[in-house]
């Protein structure tokens, strides 16, 4: 089975969900024209990242009519995107998996960074579980940025028999004499893809917010841990990739790591 996926590492307007939605719709249209089966947007794609006090103004209930247009669009293409969720006046850094006109999954980010430059822990509440959902393309888990740095979250994705791990991100650039930030992500993600024998789509936004630059450089990883395709650094861009899902069985038979995990037979 094959599928075609578009990763859209968009830049966003901070706190302007109307403008951001327009851009998201534009890229959905493009993905449809490109005959894609799935289109993916970054963490907090609808709102921008460092919202601070804007969290209270731009967060949406999961049933908000504002999202109807995306549900409608998802009748023809599966859509994954990040948004700021208002759940009974508590706020979550969430991601949606939309398919066949419905919300298949609303995932609340578990691990909210609150160190260094990060303030997510100040504004958002954390989700309590890693969720994996059955889709047309296999079992999909969504992790949001910092989640991926937690081995426990990766382990959940592993024992949930994930076929495709989608990592939505708003990861700031830094560099030093030894490395640049994208190298960290490539190493962490390819490690997981290889050990779990799953595809991994890393979608990191582009653009700047008050001097903080999100590095883009989104990529597709094969279940053998190799980068199949990657986007440019720093610039808004959409990249498309053909995915051969038959590689999953090959990768998982080559390195059947999950087979011997004690808790893999719960399902």
């Amino acid at each position, binding site marked *: 089975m094959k599928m075609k996926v578009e990763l859209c590492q968009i830049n966003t307007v*901070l706190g302007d969900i109307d403008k951001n939605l327009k851009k998201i719709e534009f890229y959905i249209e493009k993905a449809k024209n490109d005959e894609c089966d799935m289109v993916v947007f970054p963490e907090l794609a609808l709102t921008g990242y460092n919202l601070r006090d804007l969290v209270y103004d731009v967060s949406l209930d999961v049933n908000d009519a504002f999202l109807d247009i995306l549900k409608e669009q998802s009748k023809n293409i599966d859509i994954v995107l990040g948004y700021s969720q208002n759940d009974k006046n508590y706020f979550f850094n969430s991601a949606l998996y939309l398919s066949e006109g419905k919300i298949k999954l609303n995932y609340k980010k578990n691990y909210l960074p609150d160190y260094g430059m990060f303030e997510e822990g100040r504004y958002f509440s954390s989700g309590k579980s890693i969720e994996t959902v059955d889709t047309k393309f296999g079992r999909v888990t969504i992790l949001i940025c910092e989640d991926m740095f937690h081995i426990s979250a990766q382990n959940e994705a592993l024992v949930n028999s994930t076929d495709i791990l989608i990592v939505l991100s708003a990861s700031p650039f830094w*560099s030093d*004499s030894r490395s640049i930030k994208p190298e960290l992500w490539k190493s962490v993600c390819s490690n997981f893809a290889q050990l779990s024998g799953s595809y991994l789509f890393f979608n990191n936004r582009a653009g700047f917010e008050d001097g903080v630059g999100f590095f883009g450089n989104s990529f597709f990883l094969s279940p053998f841990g190799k980068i199949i395709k990657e986007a440019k650094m720093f610039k808004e861009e959409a990249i498309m990739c053909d995915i051969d899902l038959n590689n999953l069985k090959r990768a998982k038979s080559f390195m059947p790591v999950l087979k011997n995990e004690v808790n893999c037979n719960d399902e």
Partner: protein
Amino acid sequence: MMNKLKINCEIVAEYLIQFVQEEVQKTGIKKAVFGLSGGIDSSLVAYIAKEALGKENVYGIMMPYKKSSKESLEDAYKVVDDTGINHKVFEITDIADSYISKFDKISKLRQGNIFARTRMVTLFDHSSELGALVLGTSNKTELLLGYGTWYGDMASSVNPIGDLYKNQIYQLSRYFSLPESVITKKPSADLWVGQSDEDELGFSYDDADVILFHLYDLRYSIEEVAELGFDKNLINLIAERVRKNQFKRMPPLIAKVSKRTINIDFRYLRDWGL
């Protein structure tokens, strides 16, 4: 030890160009203006801004005082010729002298601050005249040491080089092939004849960079930095400068009266809605 400050110039340059382009243009403004002294910092900003906004949208303002060094102005012209950016020479002598003449006695430090602030007034006025944002040209070494004039040369809207140590400014200047004389001359604020940054500070930029990098980027303790072979008095002196000058890196303090005080619990980025 200097190796630790090495940066990937190609990637960092691309990043800084993108930064200037986006953080200027998203405000709705297409142009940028900055003070071009002919020193290495402002010269580097000229090259970054040219790539980001196009030479026709960049304005380097040369603002010499009568005692400013002629070589600086010559170097500034080399940068203008090489980049093709717009330029203007705006002498500050009469404005600054008119102010200074109100006082019988005035220290060198006060005069230096007056020059820096006269230049700031000039830049922000040209910002309004040209419809251009003011680019900052202070580097991380100066900002940490507080070696600059508050609301003078430290004032700007957008600063592409404020997270780069002096040594990293040199690396990027080589990468952008700045004129050789700009790179090789002794760093000077040129606030009075023969001024040298390193003489005035009492230590070299190389030492300052390595000490600052270890103290703040790598979070070494004073003792750990001393073990690298630096004089403990020098490390303490530098650390004290950084602490005492924290105010220069901040907006003014506001007395909290209400439940929602600007910048305390009224918290938005500049890029709000941009």
